[in-house]
């Protein structure tokens, strides 16, 4: 079975051109690949019916997002008392936003958690991508003792569930004094077997052996070859791995939940979870508007990131892990 994807096009980056031109080209290519609907013997009506289905599912997808945007402008009383899908006076968006900077309920401040999350996501994500790039290059372009065995172990690690590895990590941390240490959060994030697998596949497709050999004959060292020749060709693959790793750290809940007891180290996910727990136990703390506003500010950066970096997750890279 050869359900291989069209190899991610490395040249795409070099061809550059303005963003507009690139978009136009992508759109044209997309239209090129599509067989006109009429050829299937379909009526025009089918297109309308399918579009309506898409609209319905899009509404389902956007309902919670719309709710959180609308309710970020409300007071606690209005969140409970007014229609959930329309605005109500007073308009408290800016007040709610300001409250994110304050230490409510002695839980710690949202803005601090946001900074922590960004720190963990950037260090963990960039680190994981770097290690995956090195390892993927090593596995794709070198044969050394044990390279096959090690690679199979990495593939095997794809099967190890996060839910089962987190408690073991905690037990080791208790011995290694990594409880309540930011390194306890960042270091395990560096291990991305999926990233290594994706990078190996990507390098296999986009960094020609001949180019590396030519550079060797010219006397370039391996480190120089990696940074000057291979790395620029890997950029689209690196972006995908970076995106997936950053999202992975940004979303991680279980690990920080059990290794941090100091509120000042919490990432957003754990802080928001704590607020939601306290909102039910202490009724009048006005925590609900904060949870809603906090939720909005948590998801906004990632959604924007995804919209900007669309072409990296659009392509065949995601499938790289699947097509084998």
């Amino acid at each position, binding site marked *: *079975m050869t359900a291989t994807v069209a190899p991610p096009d490395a040249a795409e980056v070099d061809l550059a051109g303005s963003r507009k031109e690139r978009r136009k080209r992508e759109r044209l290519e997309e239209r090129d690949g599509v067989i006109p609907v009429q050829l299937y013997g379909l009526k025009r009506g089918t297109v309308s019916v*399918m579009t309506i289905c898409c609209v319905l599912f899009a509404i389902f997808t956007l309902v919670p997002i719309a709710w959180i945007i609308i309710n970020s402008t409300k007071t606690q009383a209005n969140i409970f*008392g007014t229609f959930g899908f329309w605005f109500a006076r007073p308009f408290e968006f800016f007040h709610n936003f300001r409250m994110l900077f304050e230490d409510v309920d002695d839980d710690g401040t949202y803005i601090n958690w946001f900074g922590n999350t960004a720190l963990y996501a950037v260090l963990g994500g960039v680190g994981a991508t770097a290690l995956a790039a090195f*390892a993927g290059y090593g596995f794709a372009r070198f044969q050394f003792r044990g390279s096959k065995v090690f690679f199979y172990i990495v593939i095997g690690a794809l*099967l190890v569930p996060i839910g089962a590895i987190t408690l073991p990590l905690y037990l080791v941390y208790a011995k290694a004094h990594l409880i309540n240490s930011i390194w306890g959060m960042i270091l395990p994030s560096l*291990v991305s077997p999926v990233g290594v697998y994706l990078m190996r596949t990507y390098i296999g497709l986009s960094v020609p052996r001949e180019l590396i050999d030519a550079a060797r004959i010219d006397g370039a060292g391996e480190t120089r070859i990696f940074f000057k020749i291979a790395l620029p060709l890997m950029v689209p693959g690196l972006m995908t791995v970076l995106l997936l790793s950053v999202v992975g750290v940004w979303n991680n809940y279980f690990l920080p939940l059990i290794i941090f007891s100091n509120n000042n180290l919490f990432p957003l996910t754990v802080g928001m979870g704590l607020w939601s727990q306290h909102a039910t136990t202490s009724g009048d703390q006005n925590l609900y508007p904060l949870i809603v506003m906090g939720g909005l500010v*948590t998801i906004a950066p990632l959604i924007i990131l995804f919209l900007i970096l669309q072409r990296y997750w659009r392509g065949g890279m995601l499938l790289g892990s699947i097509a084998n």
Partner: protein
Amino acid sequence: MSGTAISAPTRPTQGESRSQPRHSAFARRRDRRGSAFVSPFLLAFLLFMIVPLGYAIYESLFTSRLIGGTVFSGFSNYSQILGSGMFWSGVIRVIIFGAIQIPVMLIIAFFFATAFDLGVARFGRFFRTIFFIPFAVPVVVSALMWGFLFEPSYGPFVHLASALGFHNTNFLSSSLMLPSIIVIAIWEWTGYNSLILYTALKSVPRDIVEAAILDDTPLWKIILKVKLPMVRPAIVMLIFLNTIGALQLFVEPLILNNYSAGVISLNWTPVLYIYNTSINDAQYNLGAAMAVVLGLVIVAISVTSLLFRRRKGEFK
């Protein structure tokens, strides 16, 4: 690293070719370089995956007692887990969850992936982007948002339900909690799965489809008999990834418990049970044994599915 500058490299020819047998000294140097590239990852992998797993297995063989401290107890933790209904009721619940959520989600995902691939829906690009948005929302935040929507006293969905004639619907009651979580999971993951299926469908060669059209094959047959078999590996892989995810259900029930106290028991899902046993009850050894059992259950499922694929000649 040799300091020589690179003179303009010769243009690479397209395609792959094995490099010739190498000079032994050269090869040994290459050998070391290869390991050097891989070793930072392998070191982190060893320290943060292999060591913890090994240590958890070691810890799972001990029991801490109030009197006498921690003593070696062999497999007694395991027999306690395997023999009690507490662990298995959670396992059964997540299996039911997966058995409903995964097929429903994949059918919806395949439906939209096909629609986008055939171009039978207008604005396909736009909808693909919209559908993918939930992937960027942390699970904690999606559980919080849906918790607000489902909340029994003020949640908008409760009003919606009573407007439709279903009065006093409690989406977070013990009977509706699992279906509600299924809806949340479908919301979270359909777009991602659909995108992967779409990419797989795109790679079906155009001439095969054109040949089918020339043979006057009806559309449903093209979809089910031509396209579906060609993306089967992608579907099998998605079933497998989603199953691993479903068995680890944890965040949604933990967060929804804040909106509707008492519905989520301590052992509602296996990971929740591990969390409550080890972190809240400080029974680390028992928790470690549970983590090992859960890991083994998941690995067993994965290996079975891989063997199945290999038997079908799909796994290389």
